[in-house]
């Protein structure tokens, strides 16, 4: 039986990866990801986990090593943040194109410059179009649960795509909080052993990663896109199974107090919890406010999102990264596109908040809602602004 423990989230993440019986871990240290891979190396050093821990010389090689190991039939894991992700990004595209079920935890952190070790979602947004499945955790429990779910989804023969589990750097990675840790048997019941579909094997030689001439590249990308689309129902199915095994439910798009809500906040990641507290407070004051929060970033659950948002008079989209666009942050672009595709023209306000470790508070959410409510009432144009920036 698993048990409730107090644990740093990074340690819990490493523990659950260990319970998944990974074969190869390749990692390079970067703040705030370090505690995850440090603890994995301890598990290996102490003999608790029988795996190869490859202390590579860069994140680029971390992902390259994972690609090689996964192609050779191993269950693999790596973890990174920010600049580390940027360096490995080249290989992330290839990992998904080769359909290798690598699992990676990203302790989300801002991108330079100026250099910032603190949390935002710039790395996660950079990963947007790499063909990885991306889930987003809001607390330590979800980090553990989503990592376990990640292996099940990634290795599902109907999917075979890499999965990135996002957890906010420091805010989650360095937090000690109560977590239900499953035990090995529970994990094994949920996660079947990995049976690679294809592998590098001299007894059955295959050519991985051939040159794609113009005659085939488009078809290759189409096949990959279909795999990503096909992953969505499997992701949902794996969450349903998860609920049966562990009693905790997950959905691509989740809602909090949305019944009768006129203004909906839309968030992703750990700020969603602060947003819930803000919603509680505003509801208590009689304001018709609710929260929609994204659990799944890729594949983008457009249909589920529209279902959750429709009926609201205004939507407040909170972005945690810059797109350096003129109209929206990266999440809001998706939201607006999804609404447009469904013929919905709700009033959408976009706020960029929590860049590079700037705190996002209950008060901030109240301000965003007030501003949106005011804009809606006065018929002001929809805006895109950075919260609390000093003029």
């Amino acid at each position: 039986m698993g048990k409730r423990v107090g644990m740093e989230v990074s340690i819990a993440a490493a523990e659950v990866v260990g319970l998944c019986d990974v074969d190869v871990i390749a990692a390079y240290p970067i703040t705030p990801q370090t505690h995850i891979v440090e603890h994995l190396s301890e598990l290996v050093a102490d003999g608790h986990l029988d795996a190869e821990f490859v202390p590579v010389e860069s994140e680029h090689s971390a992902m390259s090593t994972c690609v090689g190991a996964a192609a050779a039939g191993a269950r693999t894991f790596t973890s990174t943040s920010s600049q580390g992700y940027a360096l490995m990004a080249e290989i992330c595209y290839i990992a998904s194109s080769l359909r290798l079920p690598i699992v990676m935890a990203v302790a989300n952190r801002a991108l330079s410059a100026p250099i910032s070790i603190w949390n935002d979602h710039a790395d996660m947004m950079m990963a947007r179009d790499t063909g990885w499945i991306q889930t987003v955790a809001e607390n330590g429990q979800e980090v553990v649960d989503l990592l376990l779910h990640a292996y099940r989804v990634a290795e599902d023969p109907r999917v075979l795509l890499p999965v990135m589990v996002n957890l906010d750097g420091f805010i989650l990675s360095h937090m000690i909080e109560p977590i239900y840790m499953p035990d090995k048997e529970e994990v094994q019941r949920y996660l079947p052993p990995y049976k690679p579909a294809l592998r590098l094997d001299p007894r059955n030689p295959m050519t991985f990663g051939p040159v794609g001439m113009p005659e085939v590249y488009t078809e290759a990308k189409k096949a990959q896109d279909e795999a990503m689309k096909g992953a969505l129902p499997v992701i949902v199915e794996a969450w349903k199974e998860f609920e049966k095994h562990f009693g905790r439910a997950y959905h691509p798009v989740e809602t909090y107090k949305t019944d009768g809500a006129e203004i909906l906040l839309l968030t992703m990641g750990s700020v969603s919890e602060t947003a819930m507290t803000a919603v509680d407070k505003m509801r208590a004051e009689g304001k018709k406010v609710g929260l929609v929060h994204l659990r799944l970033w890729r594949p983008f659950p457009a249909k589920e999102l529209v279902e959750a948002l429709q009926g609201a008079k205004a939507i407040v989209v909170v972005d945690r990264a810059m797109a350096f666009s003129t109209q929206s942050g990266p999440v809001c672009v998706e939201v607006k596109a999804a609404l447009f595709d469904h013929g919905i023209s709700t009033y959408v306000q976009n706020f960029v908040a929590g860049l590079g470790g700037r705190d996002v508070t209950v008060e901030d959410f109240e301000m965003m809602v007030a501003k949106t409510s005011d804009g809606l009432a006065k018929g002001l144009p929809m805006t895109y602004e950075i919260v609390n920036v000093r003029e």
Partner: protein
Amino acid sequence: MAKETGIVRWKDLALGCTLMEPGTAAELKTGDWRSMRPVTNRELCIKCGQCYIFCPDMVYSRTAEGYYEANYYYCKGCGICARECPKDAIQMVQEEK
């Protein structure tokens, strides 16, 4: 799958575009690239195998009598075999068109 061209439907691609069958390049006729062909004079040949081990296209194979025979399906006509033959037993001759 259209083997020569690579023109395929996306549904027919193997996972990750992996090529499941080994050595299928053997279908490709690189002999088309050749304008000169190597011809071995067996009277001079000492069966040393230099032509065999120095051929970038794996054109030569050993016959039962120990001679080395060129497979013109693949020979690109580079001339290394002729150049390296210690007995000048291999001559490069113009391809008849």
